């Protein structure tokens, strides 16, 4: 019987029946449609990739130079005549702690009153023609103003340096950096250039002597933002602020989101109420982020009286924003776990909680992790809601707790983008974007690694 059926089918294929002919006629049309569709898809992919490549190329070409910054390596003589301070007080010389602290404070004030700019200027003059001594301000203008405080901090740390000659590496002024990098149009008339002709000549001189070099801009990564000394403006404050917010988001949104998803997916009865909740979670995921900022300002700041600009508030707002993402991702992961696994556990007499904890959740971990990390990464790049809770303020210190004022990486990018010193901060902004993108990419890589690690086949 089996051989009989086989014979009839091959026979039907050989003779060109009317059906066969019709199918053949439609083949050309189908193939053309298929080719068209495939080409369209390919084109879409190429356009997408091209745009991403363009974005990365622009940001990298603009931002990478900012990681190297014009730096002066000077031999600085810490002149005891200028740094005219008594020796640092010793703890043993005082009867009690209070007296010692008072004396130490007095010593610090004396240090602060010292004209450190002059110390640096003198060091710089050694490399310049003698007539430069007449225009001291212009000479000092070559050095980023923040370096005075760096030098002071150095001496305060080790008072023995007074009277010594030390090798001091300090950032050049922002305008010097821009000039050296060729980002100032050199054909402009003198009065429109930020540097005087003397200064420009000195820069050439310093370059020739190897005093002015391009060094890795550690200031960009380890300094806080600065207005008085743009050259030393860095991302450290924003980075730590973002870090605090990430911690708050992870600590709050992952457990709450996963628990909510497990409850809704595995335990909650299906009724109007849970349907209503589900619809609202999906709606929340679509709410514009700036609305969450308004909510945060109204609830956390005006009602709970939490401090403005604090990473705590930012973290809470971003948690609200991330929750729906995590809930939705977790639920779809849970739904994808084969029901046969649940049945197997329940059939053995495992309780509902045991089934979820022992079997469903371990299988869902890779998906949950991916969802959580994508949610957190999204929160990390969020700017709009943070502007509304005051995180766009200028903060010149690294926050030490989530209650301190702080800014965040994307907000810092926004602030630098609007800085008046355009030609210096353009590169700085792109560099900050590179840092943010690197952070996001490493988070995504982490997601992939964790997923691969926990993934099990069934």
């Amino acid at each position, binding site marked *: 019987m*089996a051989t009989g059926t086989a014979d009839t089918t091959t026979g039907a294929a050989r003779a060109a029946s009317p059906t066969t002919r019709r199918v053949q006629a439609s083949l050309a049309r189908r193939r053309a449609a298929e080719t068209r569709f495939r080409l369209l898809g390919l084109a879409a992919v190429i356009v997408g990739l091209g745009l991403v490549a363009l974005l990365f190329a622009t940001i990298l070409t603009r931002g990478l130079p900012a990681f190297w910054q014009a730096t002066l390596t000077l031999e600085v003589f810490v002149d005891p005549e200028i740094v005219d301070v008594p020796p640092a007080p010793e703890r043993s010389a005082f009867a009690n702690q209070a007296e010692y602290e008072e004396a130490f404070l007095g010593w610090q004030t004396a240090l602060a009153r010292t004209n450190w700019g002059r110390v640096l200027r003198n060091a710089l003059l050694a490399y310049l023609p003698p007539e430069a001594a007449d225009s001291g301000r212009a000479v000092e203008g070559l050095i980023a103003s923040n370096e005075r405080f760096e030098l002071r901090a150095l001496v305060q740390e080790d008072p023995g340096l007074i009277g010594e000659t030390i090798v001091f590496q300090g950032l050049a002024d922002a305008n010097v950096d821009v000039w050296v990098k060729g980002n100032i149009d050199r054909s402009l008339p003198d009065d429109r250039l930020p540097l005087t002709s003397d200064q420009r000549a000195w820069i050439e001189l310093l370059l020739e002597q190897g005093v002015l070099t391009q060094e890795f801009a550690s200031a960009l990564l380890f300094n806080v933002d600065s207005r008085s000394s743009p050259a030393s403006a860095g991302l450290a404050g924003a980075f730590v602020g973002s870090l605090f917010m990430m911690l708050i988001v992870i600590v709050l949104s992952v457990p709450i989101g996963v628990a909510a998803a497990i409850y809704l997916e595995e335990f909650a009865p299906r009724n109007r109420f849970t349907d209503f909740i589900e619809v609202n979670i999906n709606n929340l995921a679509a709410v514009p982020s700036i609305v969450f900022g308004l909510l945060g300002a109204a609830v956390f700041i005006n009602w709970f009286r939490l401090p403005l600009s604090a990473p705590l508030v930012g973290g809470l707002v971003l948690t609200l924003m991330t929750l729906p993402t995590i809930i939705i991702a977790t639920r779809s992961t849970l739904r994808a776990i*084969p029901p046969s696994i649940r*049945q197997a*556990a*329940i*059939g*053995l007499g495992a309780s509902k909680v*045991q089934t979820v904890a*022992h079997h469903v959740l371990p299988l869902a971990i890779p998906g949950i992790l991916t969802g959580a990390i994508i949610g957190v990464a999204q929160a990390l790049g969020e700017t709009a809601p943070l502007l509304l809770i005051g995180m766009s303020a200028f903060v010149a210190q690294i926050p030490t707790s989530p209650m301190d004022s702080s800014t965040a990486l994307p907000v810092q990018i926004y602030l630098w983008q609007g800085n008046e010193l355009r030609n210096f901060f353009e590169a700085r902004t792109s560099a900050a974007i590179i840092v943010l993108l690197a952070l996001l990419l490493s988070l995504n890589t982490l997601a992939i690694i964790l997923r691969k690690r926990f993934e099990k086949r069934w």
Partner: protein
Amino acid sequence: MPAHAEPKQPPSSEIETSPAMTDLTKPVVAGDAASAPAAAPHGANRPEPKVTASDVKVFYGSAEALHGIDTEIPAHQVTALIGPSGCGKSTFLRCLNRMNDTIEGARVTGRILMDGEDIYDKSLDVVLLRARVGMVFQKPNPFPKSIFENIAYGPRIHGLAKNKAELEEIVERSLRRAGLWEEAKDRLKEPGTGLSGGQQQRLCIARAIAVSPEVILMDEPCSALDPIATARIEELIDELRQNYTIVIVTHSMQQAARVSQKTCFFHLGDLVEEGDTDMIFTNPRDKRTQDYITGRFG
């Protein structure tokens, strides 16, 4: 084809649906234990029932899937539930360990007594019931864990083993009973999902046995397996009968005939006919039963 079809008899007879079914009632296993109780005149000296169902109705939402089932599951026998797709046999099977509770909108009425105890009583703990009534599913569903962990899971959650040695003993005993020990003893740490389909199903049976249940429910346990694996499972079912009461849902009438002592024929949510397996297959009383077992529908 007829030239080399001789050696394996059961697979080739699978397609056949001749009215002369008498030869199929012979169990595949050449054991006297299998044929002895079945050979007894039907209805007489039946062992006392392990499970008694009276007027069991199941509703999915407002649809009634079972219309009042009255039957008895005899202890230490294999009871086969047969019938066309959608007849309610699996639904009835799932009533016996209250797996229907997990289905949204399912409702069960009537009484099911196990050893005289109402399993739908409010004071009864479902977890305890499911420890007493094990289940093997249609598709082998080992946990994505090691073979050892698969079997150790049940004893562990029920606290059946006091220490590791005892647990290992349970695992070995269960695997031996399921006829998987020889194949699995050297790969206990390997994932259960790495076994072949038939081995996986025996692993699932071993997993069910590990909890020492009194009743084992099997929902078409061989439908995803090839004839050789099927034969091994059937052999196993016959051996297990001595220690457990077994209820099996099957689409293969040959299988029902081979492994069971009692058969219940379901049709459209009704229990049409029940009785000793030889009686059902040789001398069905109801027209629908006859039509079904002779392959006129289903």
